[in-house]
């Protein structure tokens, strides 16, 4: 970190092993979008088997090989691999790296006026460890027995006796967790230490707050899974019995090689200690993006900015003590379940507060229906559905019927797919001009939004009815059950929705690449926004700002009475 580097770095230093937060942000973004697309493709394959169980897949059925799809018919082991890897890739390789790695890395230092992240080399290391984890995960598809197929939750003993892919999964997860840890340390230090003069904590854009809380969640929730991953690796490679009780008989073979004495519940506790805060890692930065865009496009300060921040802090804290609501069905008594059901009900309150604040922010605004705004607006009802359907799952009694059914799938997909992923799209449309200096095409953008909005609902809405009917999740073929067969038409509808949703992404993909070279050139502040990132040139140079800005006011000073313009940037000296 020493010495002067005033000479121009070479291509590799500048664009590949770069320590510039913007390059790393773009690297994260592009890689994660690729993984997002891959994860989505896996799901589209699964949807064929779900809709038309045991039928030959048209067109592409024969390219997956005899071990996965003999004669074009998907085998259950491949289906389970797809399911497990869809979850893992979407969450750990797609959405989190996009929200934190890409948006956090690119936008957050700009929004606080910092020249870079506090530890640039650590930042670079974080990306490369993430990429390594991603490559390990991808390679696992090609090992004997295929990729991990015990679900993204990897419950032992099943995962302990699973094929080699599971070991790869664990190594991949250890890499990804390490990457997140490095990133979160960096984020917290950057936000606390590197804010420019005048940018007090309560003048920070809500997005930065969301990133701060998220980083704390990553920092404190991920290590237990790393430990659990090490324990499972020990179980798989060194023959220990952390998660295995004695006397198991697998396929008629008595498992005498292991000592026993462990418990499968231990994994579930350690896993969900991570995975519940993880849910908020998925949603908080998304809320941050949405809040930025809503304030910008309603031309009005956010309603209840402080209440939102307090709610976010509370949400972050509470998210650590609700984890066992995923485990109501594991033989839990009344006391622990009462505790966790209560905390679960409590944690819904701050979510309601944030959502209310965002919707009241629309009131008396002047809403511009730009493409990012449409995605941000769609986030609100979608997240509301996702949140509300969490209630029956959080109450132990109604969870008896709905646990591990499609209702759960519908619930959390409403939070992360039309919720978080729409927020990601909103963010891409919003900050694309900052990254490239050009805007995305509007017509393609509108097309992308409307098609995605309709079809994503067509995918997930039927799942609530399927869940009500009692259909278990992760079934290779639900028609073997009478109650599943009765709602098979919903599955087919869902599948068609998914494929159509896939087609709906084509305008976006075209837009994303063409506009980078041929999009309309825009000024530094095309959206007439107030936060600091719009002060920097588009794209920002190395070191971000020509002169270090000073901040004089809060983040969302729009439509200040008596001002000549309807926005009043944070760095402008003059009072309105």
């Amino acid at each position, binding site marked *: 970190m020493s010495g002067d580097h005033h000479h121009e770095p070479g291509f590799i230093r500048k664009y590949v092993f770069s320590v510039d937060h913007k390059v790393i942000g773009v690297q994260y973004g592009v890689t994660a979008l690729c993984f997002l697309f891959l994860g989505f493709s896996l799901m589209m394959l699964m949807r064929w088997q779900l809709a038309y169980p045991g039928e030959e897949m048209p067109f592409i059925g024969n390219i997956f090989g005899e071990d996965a799809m003999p004669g074009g018919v998907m085998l259950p082991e491949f289906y389970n691999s797809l399911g497990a890897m869809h979850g893992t890739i979407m969450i750990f390789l797609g959405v989190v790296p996009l929200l934190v790695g890409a948006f956090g890395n690119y936008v957050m230092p700009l929004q606080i006026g910092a020249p870079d992240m506090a530890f640039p080399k650590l930042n670079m290391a974080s990306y490369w460890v993430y990429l390594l984890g991603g490559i390990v995960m991808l390679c696992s598809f090609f090992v004997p027995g295929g990729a991990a197929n015990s679900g993204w939750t990897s419950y032992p003993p099943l995962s302990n006796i699973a094929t080699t892919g599971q070991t790869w999964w664990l190594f991949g997860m250890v890499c990804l967790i390490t990457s997140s840890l490095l990133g979160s340390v960096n984020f917290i230090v950057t936000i606390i230490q590197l804010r420019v003069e005048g940018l007090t904590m309560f003048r920070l854009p809500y997005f930065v707050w969301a990133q701060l809380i998220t980083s704390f969640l990553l*920092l404190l929730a*991920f290590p237990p899974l790393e430990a659990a991953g090490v324990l499972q690796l020990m179980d798989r490679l060194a023959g220990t019995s952390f998660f295995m009780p004695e006397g198991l008989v697998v396929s008629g073979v008595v498992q005498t090689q292991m000592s026993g004495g*462990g418990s499968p519940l231990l994994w579930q506790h350690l896993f969900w200690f991570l995975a519940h805060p993880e849910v908020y890692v998925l949603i908080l930065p998304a809320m941050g993006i949405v809040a930025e865009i809503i304030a910008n496009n309603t031309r009005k300060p956010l309603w209840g900015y402080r209440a939102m921040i307090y709610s976010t802090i509370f949400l972050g804290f509470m998210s650590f003590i609700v984890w066992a609501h995923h485990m109501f069905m594991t033989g839990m008594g009344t006391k622990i379940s009462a505790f966790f059901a209560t905390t679960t009900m409590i944690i819904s309150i701050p979510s309601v507060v944030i959502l209310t604040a965002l919707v009241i922010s629309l009131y008396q605004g002047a809403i511009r229906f730009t493409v990012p705004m449409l995605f941000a607006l769609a986030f609100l009802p979608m997240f509301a559905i996702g949140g509300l359907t969490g209630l029956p799952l959080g109450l132990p009694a109604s969870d008896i019927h709905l646990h591990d059914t499609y209702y759960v799938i519908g619930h959390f997909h409403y939070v992360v797919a039309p919720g978080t992923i729409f927020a990601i799209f909103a963010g891409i449309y919003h900050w694309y001009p900052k990254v490239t200096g050009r805007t995305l095409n509007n017509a393609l953008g509108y097309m992308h939004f409307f098609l995605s909005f309709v079809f994503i609902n067509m995918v997930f809405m039927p799942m609530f009815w399927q869940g009500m009917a009692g259909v278990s999740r992760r079934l290779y073929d639900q028609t073997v059950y009478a109650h599943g067969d009765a709602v098979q038409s919903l599955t087919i509808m869902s599948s068609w929705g998914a494929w159509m949703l896939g087609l709906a992404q084509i305008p976006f993909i075209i837009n994303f690449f063409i506009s980078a070279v041929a999009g309309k050139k825009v000024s530094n502040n095309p959206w007439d926004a107030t936060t600091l990132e719009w002060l920097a040139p588009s794209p920002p140079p190395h070191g971000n700002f020509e002169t270090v800005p000073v901040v004089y006011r809060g983040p969302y000073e729009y439509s200040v009475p008596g001002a000549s313009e309807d926005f009043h940037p944070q760095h402008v000296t003059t009072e309105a």
Partner: protein
Amino acid sequence: MSAEVLPYTVKPHPVTGLYNGKFGIWLFLASEVMLFGALFSTYVFLRMGAPETGPTAWPTGEETHLNWMLGGLNTLILILSSVTMVLAWVQFKMDNFAKGRIYLIITAILAIAFVAIKFKFEYAHKFHMDIYPKTSVFFAIYYTMTGLHAIHIIGGVVVICYFIGPGAKLWEENREYYTNRIECTGLYWHFVDLVWIFLFPILYLL
């Protein structure tokens, strides 16, 4: 990115009173607490779940085959290395590079001694007695916890050796920066010591 461009790399932030590295290392230690916390949780969980009797009962005293003398010796070694680490920092702080470096070297030697005792006398002896991680959950958690701890020690040794050797160049360029980094290394090192202080009684004595 050069240190000069980023603020508070060396000098503490006027409001928070911290330079970036120190805050960073504390956050890192917080995550380490949770990492070992999960292992302690595992220990408590498995121990509370173990039956009173039978093959999966929790071993105590002689049944553990652990040598408390070696464990105790290692505790003393690690505590001593903590002292030398902090003394090294004191010397750097007082602009006394040569003395500080000697303390660092002592720290590294003590750490290597710790690892040597761990591997050469404890692990080797147990492997010799056919005691492996798969023998019972007690040994599973013993090997995992001490193994992970040993990896932390080795990592610390690598960092300390770096500051004894190639990293010492920084002293010429920026003394305060170097001292700060030694402080951060020290914080990590004391944390590793602190973990051992808990590992020793729960594994060897209880």
